[in-house]
């Protein structure tokens, strides 16, 4: 007690399996992993189709692109912000890229411009939050409405058919490398990259400082406004990326895409341990949260549960899962 010691779980030492298990048990995400595993075991008994490659692929495809948005949202939440506009901005990304493509721009350029435009939207939100001093909630709510309006205006409310997208471009959304769909590869790259950066780089460390105690961060010489500006912009930029991938995947741009997505995405991050007050959260956890939500939805569909029961069961599983996770986590912290 009197000496300054490092905790055991930090510096990786070649200490064998016991050590590895102990470290795993010490992680914030352990509870969530356990819950998902239980769900997998139950489901593979409940349905012979569950543990098939095709089903796994379908489930993964269902959350992979949204998972990219979850990454952006998690980082934003850690910095103390929130973004309700993710659904509309993702749709707007599809619409902008789609309109440019239909106007004759090649799809790669169109995508780049679209992602840039979304980044710009994020920058505008960042401006209102950091310079004017408004709350993220209200700014992103306004932008959510405006971006949806822009989608409708740009398309006249009708989906854009982009059947003529070249196959190299569609490959992003529909192709596969070996048996692994490209979408999932991109998703994994984004997740691994940002997970690493968030845990290890000085830049993203400042995101934690800012979200944990903005004033203390400012008193540590961190330009907290820049940090928040950055995370706000990044989240929209990742919506842009997601939108472009969706376009390649669906071969169309839908002005009504992503309605209600924000709650799903925020829920995933929060289930995964991100705090709505800022200062804590992990990409890994948030993705597990997204997986949990997605697996529950997919399982109910697979089991042919009556639609009238599905929402009730889904909500109850969500509540049970966060409760169980909460207790596991409490136990873990007491043990530490």
């Amino acid at each position, binding site marked *: 007690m009197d000496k300054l010691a490092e905790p055991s779980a930090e510096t990786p030492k070649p200490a064998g399996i016991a050590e590895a298990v102990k470290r795993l048990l010490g992680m914030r995400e352990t509870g969530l992993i356990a819950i998902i595993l239980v769900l997998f075991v139950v489901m593979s008994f409940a349905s012979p189709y569950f543990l098939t490659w095709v089903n796994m692929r379908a489930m993964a495809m269902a959350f992979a692109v949204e998972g990219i948005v979850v990454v952006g949202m998690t980082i934003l939440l850690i910095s103390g912000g929130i973004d309700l506009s993710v659904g509309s901005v993702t749709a707007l990304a599809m619409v902008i890229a789609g309109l440019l493509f239909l106007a004759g721009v090649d799809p790669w350029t169109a995508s780049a411009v679209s992602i840039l435009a979304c980044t710009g939207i994020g920058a505008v939100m960042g401006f209102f939050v950091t310079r004017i001093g408004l709350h993220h909630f209200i700014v992103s709510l306004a932008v959510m409405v405006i971006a949806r309006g822009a989608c409708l205006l740009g398309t006249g409310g009708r989906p854009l058919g982009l059947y003529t997208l070249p196959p190299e471009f569609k490959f992003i959304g529909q192709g596969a490398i070996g048996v692994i769909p490209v979408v999932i590869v991109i998703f994994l790259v984004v997740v691994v990259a940002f997970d690493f950066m968030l845990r290890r780089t000085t830049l993203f460390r400042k995101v934690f400082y800012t979200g944990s105690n903005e004033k203390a961060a400012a008193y540590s010489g961190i330009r907290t406004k820049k940090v928040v500006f950055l995370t706000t912009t990044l989240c929209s930029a990742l919506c842009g990326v997601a939108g472009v991938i969706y376009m390649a995947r669906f071969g169309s741009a839908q002005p009504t895409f992503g309605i209600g997505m924000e709650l799903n995405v925020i829920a995933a991050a929060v289930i995964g341990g991100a705090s709505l007050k800022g200062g804590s959260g992990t990409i890994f956890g948030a993705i597990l949260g997204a997986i949990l939500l997605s697996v529950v939805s997919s399982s109910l*569909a697979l089991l042919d549960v009556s639609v009238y029961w599905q929402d009730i069961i889904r909500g109850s599983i969500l509540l049970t899962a966060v409760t169980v996770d909460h207790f596991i986590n409490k136990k873990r912290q007491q043990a530490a």
Partner: protein
Amino acid sequence: ESKFQCEPGETYIMNVMVSAHPYWVPVYQGFKQAAEAMGCETIFSGTPDYDITKQIASFEQDLVKQPAGVLLHPMQSDPFIEPIDRAIDSGIEVVTFAADSPKSKRSAYITSDNLAEARFAAEEIVKQIGDSAEYAVLENPGQSNHDLRVTALISYMEQHYPNMKLVGRQATNQDSNAAYRATASILQANPNLGALWIPEAGSAEGAVAAVLEAKADVLIMHADVTPTTLEHIKAGNIHMALNPNQGMQGFMGFVATFMAAHSDMFDPFNDYKVSGYNPMQIPFVDNGFAVITKDNAESFDLNAYMQGRDPN
């Protein structure tokens, strides 16, 4: 040799989005009735959400179960091209209904003719309030069949009755409170409003409330029906509703899917053997629509219809 009968265990799936929506209920009843007549199993599937990625996932999960065919309501046309084609390549036939994916390899499409509905509504409005009056529409941008009902009516009026004046066009997205607000405002701005065309029933409920409150003399017509609008029709507050023939949609949908799965019954006079496509191709089946008025409203009570029937 094939008959119009299923093998034991042969299963057909009907897949939709927003699966709790009451619209699907009579459709699925029709689907089931045809299936029972032909000794087939059915499953009702889809996603409760208005979310295309979830619907695609549920469709792909349907495929895992190796059904003989899927009657699909694709939330958007193009995103379903690849999944539908993949299903058909793996031997599972797909027929679309109420919304299409025309560029896919689906073998048939069953739907109400929204253009016909719009034409009918336009003629009825003109018949009731004359051909030089003011009318307004509520709409639900982004949902194709609702869109079509509105845009087709407007262009039909422009073409055939140039003196009909469109004075209000508001998005209410099936939300009755939003429809109440929009209608109230339209009534304010246009005291001479003669008629209101609404492409779905949810908005109609709010619109009626606003019209009644303003004590305005406005002819209301809408598509689809709910128990409340039905009562308003009986009471004369709503002039008329156009309801797609959902039962026929489901029944024809099943028959078409079955036929697509049993195309070996059929040897048509064309090139299918050389080209290798499914000979069972129907570009478009119109399931028709019913006109609901004060006189026949009794027959359109869904709760009464569902008495003793299993929704699943």
